């Protein structure tokens, strides 16, 4: 599944009819099986781009296509920035929701429990979202997205609320799934190390709405050890310098 954005523009219009152009002439391609991270300053429009790709927002101009076909709602798996767990459902019922609304998808309770176990939430399967900590909620939302079973995943800061260790576990786990299922991933993060470790390519969104691509030079598969490799640290530092220059 190849994701392609061509000349996409989008503006929010507020009550007073003031336009806030958030996406301006964006071109981006994420190829089949590619893992691309998007980084950029807060408020530059990363989340908006994901919402455009899902089909929730419609571009003013330009086209967004999956495998050459115009994108439609339900084509991609989307994890929003806020966890958005339904407060009246238990965790297990929350993560199984895709099975209830997606045609042809059945998620067995065993499968859901297995995945919960994988993110360390099995003992909370029957808890309500408000009984969970912030990071636990985020993990639940992450699992919910994975269970949609889509080949394209759009993840909006999926590990932002996780501690260093849990985050790393999640990272390797996500990579293994990605590789196994040959998914296409567009991943928003603020953690540069994470961006480097996970991605084939990093796209950097500047405040002036322009986009720069940086390819990551680390071999696949990325092992656990690589999380601490000097090569990773070096690339991360390079990225940091670039950002300091670019963001301005």
């Amino acid at each position, binding site marked *: 599944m190849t994701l392609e954005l061509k000349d996409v523009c989008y503006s929010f219009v507020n009550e007073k009819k003031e336009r806030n152009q958030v996406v301006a002439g964006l071109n981006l391609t994420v190829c089949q099986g590619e893992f691309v991270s998007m980084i950029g300053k807060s408020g530059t429009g990363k989340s908006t781009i994901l919402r455009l790709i899902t089909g929730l927002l419609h571009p003013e101009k330009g086209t967004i296509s999956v495998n050459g076909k115009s994108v439609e709602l*339900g084509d991609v798996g989307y994890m929003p920035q806020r966890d958005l767990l339904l407060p009246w459902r238990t965790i297990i019922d929350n993560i199984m929701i895709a099975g*209830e609304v997606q*045609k042809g998808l059945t998620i067995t309770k065993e499968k859901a429990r297995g995945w919960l176990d994988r993110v360390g939430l099995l003992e909370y399967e029957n808890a309500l979202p408000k009984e969970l900590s912030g990071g636990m909620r985020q993990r639940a939302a992450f699992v919910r997205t994975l269970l949609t079973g889509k080949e394209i995943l759009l993840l909006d800061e999926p590990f932002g609320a996780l501690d260093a260790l849990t985050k790393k576990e999640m990272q390797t786990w996500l990579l293994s799934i990605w590789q196994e299922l040959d998914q296409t991933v567009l991943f928003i993060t603020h953690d540069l190390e994470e961006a480097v470790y996970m991605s084939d390519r990093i796209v950097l969104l500047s405040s002036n709405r322009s986009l720069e691509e940086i390819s990551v030079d680390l071999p696949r598969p990325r092992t656990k050890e690589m999380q601490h490799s000097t090569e990773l640290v070096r690339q991360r530092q390079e990225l940091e310098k670039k950002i300091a220059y670019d963001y301005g």
Partner: protein
Amino acid sequence: MIMVKKWLQSYALFTASACIVLLVVELIVRQGIVPAYIIPAPSNVVIAIYSNWKPLIFIHLSATMLEFGIGFTISVIGGTGLAVSMFFSKTIEKLMYPAVLISQTIPIIALSPIFVLWFGYTIWSKVAVTVLISFFPIVVGTFDGLRSTDKEYVELFRSMGAKKQHLFQKLHFPTALPSFFSGLKIAIVSALIGATIGEWLGASEGLGYYSRRMSGDLNSEGVFAAITLLSIVGMILFGFVSLLERRFLKWKNV
């Protein structure tokens, strides 16, 4: 048993106050300060209920409850149905909301011949009044509740390719529940009153008929006997809806 005890404890104050009020009324009436044909002595009301309990309960209460039951069921089904249709279709909203509204601004008794003409003296004229009175709170409660869904959740569902029907079932419906229950609590009480008012349009049984009839004879004990029964039933019904509400919105209080 434990529930009853808990209930008694939490409503002890009310029960005590009610007893005091009844006692004061008893005294006032016995002293002749208020004539007994306007407000009867509570003790006499109890006697009136006691000495008449068979027809009161088996004929009148059961007649009223039947009207109430049918009417309220129709209201709940029809009211939520209408609210849901209005939620999904702006056309239906713009068409039906004013119509429902008009139905609410008409004093029913002024229309009694029309009701009789349409429904005759069957149970349906009383059911119609019950529906007319209890329909609106359900429509407003459900409709406002459905509209209160957080857009971010809607986006999440739509991103999964959820159909309207799923959105409704899994998201709008649970979101609307609190507001729906507010409407339902108002409606269930109105429906009971509706049944009694319906009986004034022509009936030969029912607590509303009974109370009006007694009132025509200035028999205030009889009137208050019916009122007392109605109040008790009303409170039980309300309590029942409140219980349901607590049950369905349990996640809020955990």
